[in-house]
């Protein structure tokens, strides 16, 4: 008898638990939960909790390591993700695949806080599907003790003097991209001749390269085991904080300018709540908190004004003048993606 009673209690608990899990409309008239899918280490602590408190919407927060992982999961369906943070080329690809929903700007009044220079790019004209979240550039992080000359050109990565001291990124688009820039081409080239020229350059460089890495360059640069490394801006600033010999420079030939945006995938069934979240993320105080913790540059011009001075004036983060002159944004290469992969395989197996 006791056992049966216990069983009943357990059953009831399970039922009530699953009832809790199911979404309902809360007092403020919102659906009571959304699923946010973001990069690892890409949300300031407290931001989500404040949103939950303010609007009574529970945020189920999940993280992904690469754009491609996220894309695969959205394609499969399954979880009903409401807000995602894809990079610009992935926004373009997902838009073309019909995986994104058009944004309703009536629900996004805080869009006025976004820097006008950072709106309306070719990857998403008129920001129909996405809003820029954070952005950055690619440059060279170097050790001032080992590199005495000025770092102002990508050519320094091909300098024999630094044999075995150079770290390149184990990421085809980025490493090939800056090589194309060095040659004076577009990093979105679909001209096979230009691409093969870049391939030759990288094969020539290979004996000088210590390693092609993605995450491990942090420890190596901090420990002073290499003279220079190709890195993303925010990352460079975080690493440079740990070793004062390190400095970051963006070469004159121009570089890659990248964006991570906020978008609503087609898996979302609660677009209004998703837009509420995006609008919240664009609030100056929230955007400031984000930029301050994560270290990348925020696209929110009102938030920049709130940042501590040393961060606002950091040329590595917020370069002088027109950023669009320095940086070129990646476009999705479509069919040509496989050519880049073939060239990359060729370089690596040389």
């Amino acid at each position: 008898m006791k056992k049966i009673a216990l069983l009943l209690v357990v059953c009831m608990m399970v039922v009530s638990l699953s009832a809790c899990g199911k979404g309902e409309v809360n007092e403020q008239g919102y659906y009571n939960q959304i699923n946010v899918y973001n990069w690892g280490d890409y949300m300031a602590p407290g931001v989500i909790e404040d949103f939950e408190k303010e609007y009574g919407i529970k945020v189920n927060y999940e993280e992904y390591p690469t754009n491609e992982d996220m894309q695969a999961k959205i394609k499969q369906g399954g979880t009903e993700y409401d807000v995602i943070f894809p990079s610009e080329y992935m926004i373009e690809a997902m838009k073309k695949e019909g995986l994104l929903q058009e944004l309703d700007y009536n629900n996004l009044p805080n869009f006025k806080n976004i820097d006008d220079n950072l709106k309306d790019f070719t990857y998403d004209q008129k920001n129909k599907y996405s809003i820029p979240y954070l952005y950055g550039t690619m440059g060279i992080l170097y050790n001032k003790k080992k590199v005495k000359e000025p770092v102002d050109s990508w050519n320094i990565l091909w300098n024999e003097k630094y044999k075995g001291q150079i770290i390149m990124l184990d990421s085809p688009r980025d490493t090939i991209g800056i090589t194309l820039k060095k040659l004076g081409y577009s990093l979105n080239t679909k001209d096979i001749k230009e691409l093969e020229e870049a391939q030759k350059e990288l094969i020539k460089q290979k004996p000088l390269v210590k390693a092609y890495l993605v995450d491990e360059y942090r420890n190596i640069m901090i420990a002073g085991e290499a003279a220079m490394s190709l890195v993303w801006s925010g990352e460079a600033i975080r690493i440079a904080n740990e070793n004062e010999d390190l400095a970051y420079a963006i070469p004159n030939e121009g570089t890659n300018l990248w964006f991570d945006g906020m978008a609503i995938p087609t898996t979302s069934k609660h677009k209004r709540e998703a837009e509420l979240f995006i609008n919240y993320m664009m609030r100056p105080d929230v955007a400031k908190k984000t930029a301050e913790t994560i270290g990348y540059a925020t696209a929110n011009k009102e938030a920049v004004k709130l940042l501590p001075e040393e961060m606002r004036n950091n040329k590595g983060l917020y370069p002088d003048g027109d950023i669009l002159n320095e940086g070129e944004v990646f476009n999705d290469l479509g069919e040509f993606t496989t050519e880049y992969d073939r060239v990359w395989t060729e370089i690596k197996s040389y």
Partner: protein
Amino acid sequence: MKKTWLSIPYAIWALLFSIAPIIIITVYSFCKRSTYGGMIYEFTVDHYKQLLEPIYINVFWRSLSLAAISTIICLIIAYPMAMIIAKSEAKRKNMLVMLFVIPLWTNFLLRTYAWMIILREQGIINNILIGLGIIDEPIKFLYNSGAVVLGMIYNFIPFMVLPIYSVLSKMDESLIEAAKDLGATSTQVFLKVTLPLSLPGVISGLIMVFMPAVSTFIISDLLGGGQTILLGNLIQNQFSVARNWQFGSAISIIMMVFILISMMISGKYKSEEGGGLW
């Protein structure tokens, strides 16, 4: 009747996690690719043709040769070890086997990271050598093929030692005594009795080491510094940045064929003595 009932979990397992995935991969490998990497269900053999291009043959060749080198070195190191363990007394035997197995309880990735710490320029070895005044400049141990081979040997050697040990420890001691009585020298005993009898263990050891070695991508990324591209890396790239699941599937299928062939060759030896791990 009862037997068939009990085999249901196995059947479900095999269907869900072996047969279905293999069918899916096979289908993918013959599909066309849309501009954004989507599946177009039309038959094509382009992906297999692409594998015949020199650069991919090159990748195959390097993976196979690096894996073969690691496997052979593993065998050379592991055989005497297995013999020593098999010949020691029961109590010590257990302890010796234990010492071999314990590192396997630690995560594979962690063990590989540990090697990075040992080998790096400000790592333990370089610091000791510099401290002793043997060298002035740190030696570059990390980020070359040697480091990759080292990583493979270290991570996979238990799979070589254990099957050889299990065959050797089951071997009938009287056969060796008989050979000695008949006047064989210890070299002859080894070559004519011990070695032939231990072959099944050696063969399964070879496969157990070769298979993971040929498909690894973590070791070549971490210890090789991404300097070379192996089969595992190639497949990984196809499923991530290249957005070419079709080509990735084709490579996987070819790799499975390789492994199947090597297992068939070894199957001949294995059945007689049953000394393998499976």
